[in-house]
């Protein structure tokens, strides 16, 4: 099954989760997602998702001047973002549990 299809539904959650520990700028968030195993995530998808979450009021941004290279726009979770992360995380876990059970019942456990 194509992972990109799955990613579409959970990219918001993945981005929020990555920002839970530490604020990050676009490229940094992308790298962290890939390091976590989401190899197929697209650059533009991550950027677009960040803009959308920001527009939805779940993220705050601030600019950090850098001595070597361009200034970087950092994204951080705010209270609404943390709230959303908790709720979406719960939904995901219950969904994943259901899927696991479904796959186990059919004897197709990975």
């Amino acid at each position, binding site marked *: 099954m194509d992972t990109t299809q799955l990613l579409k539904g959970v990219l918001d959650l993945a981005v929020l989760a990555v920002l839970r520990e530490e604020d990050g700028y*676009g490229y940094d968030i992308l790298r962290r997602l890939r390091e976590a195993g989401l190899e197929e995530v697209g*650059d533009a*998808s991550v950027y*677009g998702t960040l803009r959308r979450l920001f527009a939805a009021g779940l993220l705050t941004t601030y600019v950090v001047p850098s001595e070597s*290279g*361009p200034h970087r726009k950092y994204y951080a979770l705010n209270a609404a973002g943390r709230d959303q992360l908790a709720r979406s995380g719960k939904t995901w876990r219950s969904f994943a549990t259901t899927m696991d059970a479904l796959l186990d019942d059919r004897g197709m456990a990975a």
Partner: protein
Amino acid sequence: MTVTGQDIADYVHRVRAALADLPSAVRDELTEDLPEHLTEVAAEADGTLVERLGEPEAYAAELRAAAGAGEPLGARGGLDRRIAAAAHRARARLSGLDTSLGPILGYASASEFLRLLRPAWWVLRGYLAAALLSAIFSGDLTLVPRPFLSEVTGLLVLVAAVLASIWLGRNSDRLRRWPRRLMHAGALVLVVFGLVLLVNLDERSQWDDFGYQGVSVGDRYDSVQDVFVYDSEGRLVENARLFDQNGVPIRLGYPSCVDPAQPDAALRTGYPYCPEMAPFRPRPPATAPVPPGANGGGATPAPSGSSLPTAAATPTAVPSATVTPAPTGTVPEPSPTR
């Protein structure tokens, strides 16, 4: 192969071009980080940007989809999207205006200042509602609402309406969609009514206590430059003075032909300022024996005299020719014969 700054600029340009249908504010926001991001991608490994990220148009489509910025124009629901884009642009411009007008008022944004005025609007809304009620019941527009022609009930209604409006203002956040729309529509009606009331009261304030519209006397005589007084004989009266019933001199016109050396001279002497400009010439002294009854038509004698003879000339000429010879022939005759 290394990626140059020009490659990055080209890539950014093509992505932006693919997003050209979006409102410029949205597009700027979406592509804000793109040059920095491409710089990092380029520094990460070898290969062109297109090899790493795909075609700029595909990148733009992915960005657009992930950001939820909508399909390209014309792809689906073109008109709706265009309206939405126009609304978005208008909103962006309004918010720009909001922040740019703020400092003039001494606030961060104009809306911040207007928010402070909300309670004032609630009070005004209550007053307008009471005035509208009063106008409906009494059929008259008054500054103080007085439905049923009583000022006491009017004031009670006014206080109740203001308090209700304030309560509504404080609780409007809890309103659902339709009640809220109803409230906005009502506000629009009240604003229009308020303007009508204002214009009406302003017009009425120009009427005096007796209900007559004040008339400025002066403007009717603005075109008067000079005054010529004629006596019953049709003679121009010089140095005439005019007074009203209170003995106040009536000043009309202005001395237009006065010697510039003595501008006040004409004002002292009286009307007319310029006797030589008189519309009717005084009669020459030779015509003085003419009966006074004819002086009413000072200018008419000439036409009446010329029209009459043309009709009477031929009949009178015949008798005068026949009559006159007879006396001349007869008168000298007797004297020599006698």
